[in-house]
């Protein structure tokens, strides 16, 4: 017997809107890792990232009947995630310490040192560079950090990034070029 066909996002949404709540779990499974990682790199706290991701999925469920099928579901999902995360950072900035003053997350995922293709020295150098890049990314203004993540972690097109952030494409491009320049200036490796 042939394996079961994987439903498209649109088919899952139709099923959910038709009353099959459990089908929503399929969308959660499909996007949870990418979404939680995107939010994690925005807030730099593991538990907070999971909590915000959960809230985003609940918001998505609540407004699923307003989803416009002419857009990719993932673009809509990240638009909701972007608004929710930026709001969270704004609230946090107003009510607690500045983002820069927060301690590093003790749960920050450790990165594998081993590599099938690199020697131990180069793998170590790459790991250190990655840690530095993550620190530099953390210091970027959230609106710039978000664009870097959407482009280079989620591999979004500029058109999708414009829809997610609500910015004109020209602004998205200018900001991302500027953000990369700031990262390069901050990183000793690139000076």
């Amino acid at each position: 017997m042939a394996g079961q066909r994987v439903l498209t996002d649109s088919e899952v949404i139709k099923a959910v809107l038709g009353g099959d709540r459990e089908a929503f779990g399929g969308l959660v499974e499909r996007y949870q890792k990418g979404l939680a990682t995107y939010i994690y790199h925005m807030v730099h706290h593991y538990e907070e990232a999971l909590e915000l991701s959960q809230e985003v999925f609940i918001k998505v469920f609540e407004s699923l009947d307003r989803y416009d099928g002419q857009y990719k579901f993932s673009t809509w999902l990240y638009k909701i995630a972007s608004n929710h995360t930026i709001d969270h950072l704004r609230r946090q900035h107003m009510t607690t310490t500045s983002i820069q003053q927060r301690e590093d997350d003790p749960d920050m995922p450790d990165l594998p040192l081993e590599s099938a293709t690199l020697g131990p020295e180069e793998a170590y150098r790459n790991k250190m560079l990655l840690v530095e890049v993550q620190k530099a990314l953390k210091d970027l203004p959230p609106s710039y950090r978000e664009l870097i993540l959407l482009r280079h972690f989620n591999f979004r097109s500029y058109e999708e990034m414009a829809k997610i952030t609500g910015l004109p494409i020209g602004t998205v491009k200018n900001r991302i070029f500027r953000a990369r320049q700031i990262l390069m200036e901050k990183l000793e490796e690139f000076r």
Partner: protein
Amino acid sequence: MTGKEDTERCTKILALLPRFIENDFTVEESAEILEHLSKCPACQAEYESMKRLLNTLEDMPSIGVPRSFKDAVMRHLPPSKEAGDS
């Protein structure tokens, strides 16, 4: 070429690099950039740095999501809207 022309050429090439690195360029731009990079170590170094930064960003690890995550989301979903609800 004079030093001033060199500087102007470098400025022009450096402005094109962000698009070039994302394969967004015309044939003419590509030829001009590649020719300049082959002769200018400073711009070549800038190009290599940019590529290295992008590669590093694209290699950022994903975080692990607990198996219980989906169940937690499903448990917290609000009741479905019934037809006729106001």
